């Protein structure tokens, strides 16, 4: 069951993960982008955690909405508006809810994903975060439809994200800075898909 407590736990786990993976994500971005993705994500989620320290959120959706605004204000670049939009619509989907079960959580992920698609106008196969998120959220919906609980659902989603992430290596980028490289973007794992994979993995960790 998703509660306010679990929401906070997830956000703090994200703060920890992106601090840990800062160098790695930046290195991935240096290969096909501008070497800042880890710095950007870390800046954003440090600020999210600082905000949680400053003031306890009153509800799940308040926590996620504040996360969205902090990301939008602090991340910049391409990933700032994308993850910002994700959390904004994710929060809206859970508006008024004190607890949420797997179907609600899957629907919230779906709403967040749609926001990223709308904002970034990218498609699966463009070598972006969508290549990790789309198969993961599809898997969530299937598992939630089967009535699985949240940890099980997230477990399946992480597996799907991992496969999607691996598939970005051989793709030619069509969105973001990596697209300027054309064919030369092949052979490198997409940094944004990697950070999306961590986003899901952190959620799974929250239930462990």
């Amino acid at each position, binding site marked *: 069951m998703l509660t306010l407590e679990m929401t906070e736990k997830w956000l703090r786990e994200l703060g920890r993960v992106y601090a840990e993976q800062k160098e790695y994500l930046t290195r991935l971005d*240096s290969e096909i982008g*501008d*070497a*800042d993705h880890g*710095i*950007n994500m870390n800046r954003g989620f440090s600020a999210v955690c600082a905000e949680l320290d400053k003031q306890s959120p009153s509800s799940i959706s308040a926590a996620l909405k504040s996360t969205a605004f902090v990301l*939008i*204000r*602090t*991340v*910049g*670049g*391409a*990933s*700032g*508006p*994308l993850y*910002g*939009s994700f959390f904004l619509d994710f929060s809206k989907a859970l508006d008024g809810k004190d607890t949420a079960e797997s179907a609600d959580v899957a629907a919230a992920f779906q709403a967040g994903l749609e926001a990223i698609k709308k*904002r*970034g106008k990218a498609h699966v196969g463009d070598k972006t975060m969508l290549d990790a998120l789309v198969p993961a959220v599809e898997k969530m919906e299937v598992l939630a439809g089967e009535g699985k609980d949240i940890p099980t659902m997230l477990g399946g989603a992480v597996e799907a994200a991992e496969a999607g992430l691996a598939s970005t290596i051989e793709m030619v980028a*069509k*969105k*973001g*800075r990596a*697209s*300027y*490289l*054309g064919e*030369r973007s092949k052979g490198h794992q997409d940094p944004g898909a990697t950070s999306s994979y961590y986003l899901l993995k952190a959620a799974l960790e929250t239930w462990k």
Partner: protein
Amino acid sequence: MKKLINAPDDVIEEALTGMELAHSDILKVHRNPNFITRSSKTRKGKVAVISGGGSGHEPLHGGFVGLGMLDAACPGAVFTSPTPDQMEEATKAVDGGAGVLHIVKNYSGDVMNFEMAADLCGEAGISVESVIIDDDVAVKDSLYTEGRRGVGCTVFAEKIAGAAAERGDDLKKTAEFCRRVNEVGRSMGMALTSCTVPSAGKPTFEIGADEIEMGVGIHGEPGRERMKQKTAHEYVQMMGEAVVSDIPYKNGDELIVLLNGMGGTPLMELYLLYNEFEQFCKAKGLKIVRRLVGNYITSLEMQGFSISAVKADEKLLALWDAPVHTAGLRWGI
């Protein structure tokens, strides 16, 4: 890394303070979020023109804030797009009741952040029009990619839209002039050396002692081709051809031209290159009627240059010639 800075994290804040101190007659720096406005308030009923983007391209954009050009500029971290709250606050600060034009260079980050800002401003009841500049012919344009990057023609767009707004054109017309500049404007750049982003601490790309990057982007993005060094004449032939053949410009066309240094190029060389480009245009039957030669849209200390051209007509020329008083561009006043 050798740089004239203190800590990499403090570069933007300190440079903004210095800029404000250097140009307090023209501009004012606002904090939290960061944006730069003119020192005087927007005239009631005047359209406001805003631009912004990553820092490290100075004088773009802050150096173009002032009478006859921008009303505000939003500086991001070095080579990183600013965040929507910057554009939102800047827009609110300079709206004169006639709406606000956002001039956005075509990078996914810039486009999305400006888009979110425009949404927020719309919710606050301010009419915002956005124009995306994508003039870099080095990138093959395609429906299936991010499209061309916004580079040198941004300077033309800011000057011309700024002049339109200054003389009282409404938001629709101001935005139209801006779009027109982008439609008839093209650019291409090259680099001899890389730039070094302070927070990265090492050169953005490696390049041999006898190599150049043809078609480089203003963040040191890869260009069309890595090649052996050539003469100024050959560079200008290649880049000139790419720029003038893209629309294409035709015999008899009149051009406004920017021969731009990337930040680390001696002015002496820019003049030499400008001579090459004049000769190139003459041979093509193109007439340069206005020109800028100097550092206008830079990439930190990168050595190299870019050529930008926009097809001039009477209306654009009148706007180009209108008085301007900014840190980076000044005439008629």
